[in-house]
């Protein structure tokens, strides 16, 4: 009898918690909302821990830099790497002072010729130099960090799609429906270190016809360090 009473009390607490959670989630703002069923294919896959690697840094708020003060740096060297599977390494960049054999290359490459599509895998990792080179050429940049971190500072012109927030699917659908050429590179970044939100987002966007997604491996902390052009505040209305 007493046992039954305790079971009843426990069931009531569980039911009250579930009901409260559902109501709160229904009323929450989009960045605080979660779909009831998660889509995390690597949820059971343990990441490789590298003791020598720096941890994923906490978001670094930085003031917006005026265009006159900052500029996206031209790449100083070719250092892009590809994820497992290995895509063709990008060609050395032309026009770099002191670069060996630079004179043999055309003065300007297009993003597409330097970063060809890789339809066989969702993303390729790139360095900060490559990201800066691409940003300077106006390609689409997506910030995969949480909205509050994005608003504190982001790569100038970047969109914000956090794979953890409730509006991620809607934003991905909107991006796909814009009818962009899926072969044109798209740079995605998060907080560097062991942050994998950009990889997670790339995997989700990949399904929407984009086959040239480039994950900026060192992400926002590296962008701040190299003085890349940044902005603060909410995402501009489409």
């Amino acid at each position, binding site marked *: 009898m007493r046992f039954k009473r305790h079971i009843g009390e426990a069931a009531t607490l569980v039911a009250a918690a579930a009901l*409260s*959670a559902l109501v709160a*989630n229904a009323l929450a703002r989009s960045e605080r909302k*979660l779909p009831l069923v998660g889509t995390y294919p690597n949820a059971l896959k343990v990441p490789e821990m590298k003791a020598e690697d720096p*941890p994923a840094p*906490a978001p670094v708020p930085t003031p917006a830099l005026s265009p006159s003060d900052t500029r996206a740096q031209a790449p100083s060297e070719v250092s892009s790497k590809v994820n497992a599977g290995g895509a063709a390494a990008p060609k050395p960049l032309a026009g770099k002072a002191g670069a060996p054999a630079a004179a043999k290359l055309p003065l300007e490459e297009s993003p597409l010729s330097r970063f060809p599509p890789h339809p066989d895998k969702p993303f390729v990792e790139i360095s900060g130099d490559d990201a800066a080179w691409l940003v300077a050429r106006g390609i689409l940049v997506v910030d995969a960090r949480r909205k509050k971190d994005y608003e504190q500072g982001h790569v100038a012109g970047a969109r914000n799609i956090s794979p953890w927030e409730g509006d991620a699917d809607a934003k991905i659908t909107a991006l796909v429906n814009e009818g962009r050429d899926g072969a044109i590179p798209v740079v995605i970044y998060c907080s560097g270190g062991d942050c994998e939100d950009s990889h997670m987002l790339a995997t989700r966007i990949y399904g929407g016809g984009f086959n040239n997604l480039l994950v900026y491996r060192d992400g926002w902390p590296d962008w701040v360090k190299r003085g890349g052009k940044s902005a603060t505040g909410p995402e501009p209305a489409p």
Partner: protein
Amino acid sequence: MTLTERLASPWLTVRVQIALGVFFVVAALPKVVDPPGFAHMIYNYRIVPGAFVNLMALVMPWFELLTGIALILGIWTRTSAALIGALLGVFIVAITFNLARGNAIDCGCFDVTAAGKSVAERLQDMRWVVIRDLGMIVMVAQILWATGRTRPATA
């Protein structure tokens, strides 16, 4: 008054109840406010299937909050204490499992943002979390034991 009587005294039990309840309410609030952040924390444990991560991130904080409040208010004390004990057991197993396989994580116990610590620091923090949770299991045991002793036999 013997040591046993002191340990089972209502004076001590009420204080243990309130302390444990406050722990759980304080731990629950950041997770209730930011379910996506907590989902990320749960994901980092790599033991919950992807489909259930969000549901767990939504319900568990409210469960912690309600059991904590019940404990503070002295409502359904034994049931709440037992549920909190079960939760602590799950936490200890989850953290110990990840410690054993070297998956360094932020525990997500009282905060849902990454602390930006090194792998070694995170592993050390996880050891302290297990010790702290074991301490809270002792508090749960005191509540269950003391309330079991003082409960009327006919209840």
